[in-house]
């Protein structure tokens, strides 16, 4: 259990991760806080569709919930503008979920994501829900970020982002998480800490 948690320690909503990448790409995403952890691996078999595995763990004082399932993601629409890009994504998953100590039951996952970014401004909204006989969780987040400088393709990109996140069933109603996002080449890393002092780490790689 501890190993599983550590492997997943690295997410919540993986806010910032595009659920569909370039054609032929594999992308691995790990992330989390101390209460929600996330693991995703997808293959983008077209520029608008990806298929893979998604696992999540939710832990609070009352429950310890797990979900694992296969997932299909769609890029519903992309606006490629001269100075910006905007995207709408949708995903469906099917698998199993369980509470600690209980047996697993069939479960479903759904998510919707919208984002808009220029080289200096970043905004994203994402909502995700998981439902089974015993488990019902929803994670909704909104993120706003600025880049302190315009990084070129080969340079280290830096973003300063504030993420507002709500996880249903958790003790706190809304988490506010300031974070720093760094990426260079195929590597992506986010480090943050909620105003309550809970750390966040997200990692992603394309290959």
């Amino acid at each position, binding site marked *: 259990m501890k190993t599983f948690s550590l492997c997943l320690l690295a997410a919540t909503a993986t806010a910032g991760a595009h659920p569909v990448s370039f*054609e032929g790409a594999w992308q691995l995403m790990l992330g989390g806080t101390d209460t929600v952890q996330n693991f995703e691996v997808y293959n983008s078999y077209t520029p608008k569709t990806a298929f893979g595995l998604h696992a999540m763990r939710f832990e609070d004082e009352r429950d310890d919930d797990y979900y694992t399932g296969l997932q299909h993601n769609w890029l519903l629409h992309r606006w490629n503008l001269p100075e910006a890009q905007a995207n709408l994504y949708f995903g469906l998953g099917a698998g199993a979920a369980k509470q600690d100590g209980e047996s697993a039951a069939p479960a479903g996952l759904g998510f919707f994501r919208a984002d808009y970014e220029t080289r200096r401004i970043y905004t994203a909204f994402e909502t995700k829900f998981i439902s089974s006989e015993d488990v019902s969780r929803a994670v909704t987040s909104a993120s706003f970020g600025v880049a302190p400088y315009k990084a070129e393709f080969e340079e280290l990109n830096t973003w300063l982002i504030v993420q507002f996140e709500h996880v249903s069933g958790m003790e706190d109603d809304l988490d506010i998480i300031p974070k720093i996002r760094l990426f260079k080449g195929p590597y992506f890393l986010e480090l943050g800490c909620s105003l309550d002092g809970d750390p966040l780490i997200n990692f992603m790689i394309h290959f």
Partner: protein
Amino acid sequence: MNHSIILSLLGAWLFLSGSARAATERTMTVKTTVDGMVCSFCAQGIVAHFKKHPAVSNVHVDLTRKVVLLEEKKGSSISDKEITEFIKKSGFEPKKVERVSESFEKVKADKKS
């Protein structure tokens, strides 16, 4: 008289075939304007796709100028159709493909155009 005509034709053929060979063996630089290219992490696919093409020896993504530069290998060529397809497979919108006579490094270093 006949000899001079034959020699003239032979000279012209040698000149034209030499020019044609020089043109195909010269490295060409291809400059493609692309919309939506605002994030280097998301643009990784462009480099990944073009690096696999046997006619391409070098790739450069310039986010400021919104261009992708390709250097073609001597004697090889990548078609405009392939370039357009690769950009689309990478998730972006190609706008214009042009071939320029300047070297890849010179166009890469030129920050104005």
